[in-house]
């Protein structure tokens, strides 16, 4: 098949995913506890319709697009970098380390003084995790090494978060940390969106430009090098891009898992198992999946709020398990 027909087929896939994202965005704007016309989005003045649309539902949709898209993208990029279908920001410990950075900033009240400290600390946390993972797992990690290194990083971050909960001087602070960690897009504001956006854009750019190198990496590091890729730079771009997107996302929404695992896996057959073509598709796919999940938490009738991160884990963890079994069979 020629590369032109690849482009046409990918174009069709991306168009379809884009349409899905658009439809889900409108549905997400329309769903809520009060019945509000979509026209509230364009109303001026301070009527309840305008405020609910512009200050509550719009930031929710925008953050779902940003966080979902970058999680899907980062998952696809990590899987390409580590040449392992089981890599995912949550599973390799990037999300929990980012959460640790964010919790520390919130816990010590630094956020109230410098709001920018929140995404920066979360990004540094994610950076430490992905860097540590790369050191622990080596250049060509097996499935077991990767998962074990991920567990090690996650439990390290988890234990320090537990310490923060343990040491919180009153039960309300402890409850706040726990609920925040569950991950949610509820009651976020445009301020949160504006806080995360620059980092997300920078990280997305770094990840999207690494596509060609990821393709070359499928042939092995030596081949990639002979093809003229500076692997040190490629690795830096991918690690930094993942840290920027995952860190800033976790900073404003808490940890939302498994999007980065599920989306690339579902889309890979449609892009001929080629990492470069998987990246933009995973970006759109992540947006669609997180939007759908966020609509789900509002439609599923529960007495108390069902947290978004809980729903994605409930769906994602069995998926992961099935994937582990499948991968093991292939490896044997």
């Amino acid at each position, binding site marked *: 098949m020629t590369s032109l027909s690849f482009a046409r087929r990918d174009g069709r896939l991306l168009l379809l995913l884009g349409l899905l994202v658009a439809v889900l965005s409108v549905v997400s704007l329309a769903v809520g506890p009060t019945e509000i016309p979509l026209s509230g989005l364009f109303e001026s003045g301070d009527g309840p319709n305008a405020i609910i649309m512009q200050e509550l539902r719009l930031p929710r949709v925008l953050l779902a697009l940003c966080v979902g898209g970058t999680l899907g993208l980062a998952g696809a990029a990590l899987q390409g970098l580590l040449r392992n279908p089981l890599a995912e920001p949550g599973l390799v410990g990037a999300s929990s380390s980012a959460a640790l950075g964010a919790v520390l900033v919130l816990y010590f009240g630094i956020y109230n003084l410098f709001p920018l400290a929140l995404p920066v600390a979360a990004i540094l946390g994610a950076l430490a995790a992905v860097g540590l993972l790369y050191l622990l797992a080596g250049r060509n990690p097996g499935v077991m090494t990767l998962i074990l290194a991920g567990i090690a990083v996650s439990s390290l971050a988890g234990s320090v978060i537990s310490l923060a909960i343990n040491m919180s001087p009153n039960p*309300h602070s402890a409850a706040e940390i726990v609920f925040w960690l569950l991950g949610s897009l509820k009651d976020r504001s445009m301020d949160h969106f504006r806080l995360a956006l620059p980092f997300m854009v920078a990280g997305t750019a770094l990840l999207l430009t690494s596509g060609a190198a990821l393709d070359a990496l499928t042939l092995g590091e030596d081949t990639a090098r002979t093809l003229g890729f500076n692997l040190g730079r490629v690795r830096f771009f991918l690690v930094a891009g993942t840290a920027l997107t995952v860190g800033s996302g976790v900073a404003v929404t808490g940890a939302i898992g498994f999007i980065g695992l599920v989306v690339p896996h579902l889309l890979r057959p449609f892009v001929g198992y080629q990492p470069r073509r998987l990246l933009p598709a995973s970006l759109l796919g992540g947006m669609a999946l997180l939007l759908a999940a966020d609509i789900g938490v509002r439609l599923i009738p529960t007495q108390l709020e069902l947290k978004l991160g809980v729903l994605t884990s409930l769906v994602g963890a069995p998926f992961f398990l099935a994937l582990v079994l499948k991968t093991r069979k292939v490896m044997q």
Partner: protein
Amino acid sequence: MLSFLPKGPRATGLALLALLTATSMAQAQTHPRVMSPRVMSPRVMSIDNCANQYLMALADREQIVSLAKGGDQTTLAFLSARVEGVPRNHRTVEEMVAARPDILLTGQWAMSAAKVAKHFGVRVVALEAPRDIAQARRQILDVAHLLGQEERGRALVADLDQSLAEAAARRKQHRTEGVVYRSGGYAYGADTLVDSIMDGAGIANVAARLGLRRAGNIDMETLLVARPQVMLDDQARDARDPRIATDFLAHPALRRGLPQATRIQFPMAYWLCGGEALPMAVSSLATLVSERDAKREDVR
């Protein structure tokens, strides 16, 4: 362990309290070994914040074996001067068994430890959280009776009734619509002591109007449409305390959507327990609301 926790209706709790009170009096005479000099004044140990409040309000200093440590900021701030010098415990079973109080006064939170202490022969009395002022009034009298301090119990109830009467006299024809709104959207609905205190102070509880029973969450969207006139924040904490959900109450939607709503800070300690804080809660809340209403009229 869960099956230990009493989950029956409040009537059971009150009956239990009454029964335990009666038996404690009867058994008190058969165990002179552990009694204090005054036969009718049992020595009591508290392992609960609300029980702390009751003991400070009603018991003689010699009757108090120890008070539960912790929670001072939220429940005992207004008692802190008086608590000085009173022994404190860490709510451990070891302390309960070693201290051998005539009565171990607990709430619902420390029940599992209290059950173990009971197994070792310590007499346990558990306080239910009152769900309105009427229940709180009965509980004051019950605890006072348990402590052999009926006089003080009646005085505290009289105090409460007076603050309610004063609040009622001050009340306008139109009730102010208010809500307690915490980080995350947590609110108190109907069938809570908070609702009853708000009612006594002249505030119509918006959360109850929206159909919330007991405590739970009210969506920010729903609150924006309901348009409360007063928003009470009872979680004002020490600035150094860690907090995650700070920006919830500063959300632009609340600022833009409810610019008229008066934000009032009200210490949580006042309505967590049905004891000494209750009359203070009613009168200070009534004062805050009437001050707010007066300001509104000035503006007009």
